[in-house]
């Protein structure tokens, strides 16, 4: 067994999360904080953890409709995340633009710029729905790693 596969097998227990706010109203960010901080939801039991640096992340959760001002920065941060990464669009804003769609300062929906893997609609989505999407993202991530069919 090569070192590469050993490292892969060790890392699958802890897909780290990274959170990008692409001009969100903070509603979805509060729900993301809820999943991490409130023991009832507790995203850390899947081995997930919010990390401070995009270079440590495996799953990236994007909130907000991608405003013109923040677009370049979001793309820069997103490209810093090492492959394989899984992108999760949290809330209706990154998925379709939501209530901000076709606004003068909106560049989204986010899949015009970034390949999205998982969508979780809601305004904001329930913490449980976000947990559902993290579990779905984890299985996609395992597929991308080549560890699960």
């Amino acid at each position, binding site marked *: 067994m090569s070192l590469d596969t050993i490292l892969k097998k060790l890392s699958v227990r802890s897909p780290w999360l990274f959170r990008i706010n692409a001009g969100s109203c903070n509603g979805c960010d509060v729900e993301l904080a809820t999943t991490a901080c409130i023991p*009832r939801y507790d995203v850390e039991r899947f081995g997930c953890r919010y990390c401070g640096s995009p270079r440590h992340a495996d799953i990236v959760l994007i909130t907000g409709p991608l405003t013109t001002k923040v677009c370049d920065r979001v793309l820069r941060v997103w490209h810093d995340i090492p492959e394989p990464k899984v992108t999760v669009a949290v809330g*209706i804003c990154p998925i*379709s633009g939501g209530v901000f769609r076709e606004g003068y300062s909106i560049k989204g929906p986010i899949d015009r710029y970034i390949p999205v893997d998982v969508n979780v609609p809601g*305004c904001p989505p329930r913490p449980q729905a976000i*947990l*559902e999407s993290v579990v779905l993202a984890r299985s996609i991530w395992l597929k991308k790693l080549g560890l699960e069919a």
Partner: protein
Amino acid sequence: MAGFLKILFRNLLDGPSTDPYPFGKTFSPESIRGKVKLDPDLCMGCGMCVYSCTAKAINISPLDDGSGYTYTVWRNSCCLCASCRHYCPMGAISIVDDWHLAHDEESKYGLVEHHTIKYEPCANCGAMMRPIPPALAKHLYAQSKDVDPEKIRHLCPKCRQLEDAGNLAKAQTSDAQPAK
């Protein structure tokens, strides 16, 4: 110190407070807004929901052959403000508590509430129209006993107006006769 011990023992007895979801059951409050549902029997296609929708998630478009219309709600744009439910004059829209909506990118545009609603010909003139729902017809004609709501609900607005005017004239003449 004693207070802290009390909390410690209570926590030991109660067990973990973490919800086992998504590997176990979770709770849904009754009033939670999960997704929009339309009752196609009640919808008249007035378009009030399209007008009031904050996120432009609802689309009503006529069929090419004019035999009805399609009603579509795109869940990925719906912000669950419930304006459609509030303003729907027929009460056709409800918001159910099913919030399991996380999905992969392939099914992004498939996440819709879609109905094809057909018109029916007017029983009198044959113009295409939506019949009034039976419950509403019964409610509207509760006062006039000689009108059959089942019959009048299949008339188009114009024919219904004529029918109502005729009925009213008949009632007035029958009222006037005993006074003589």
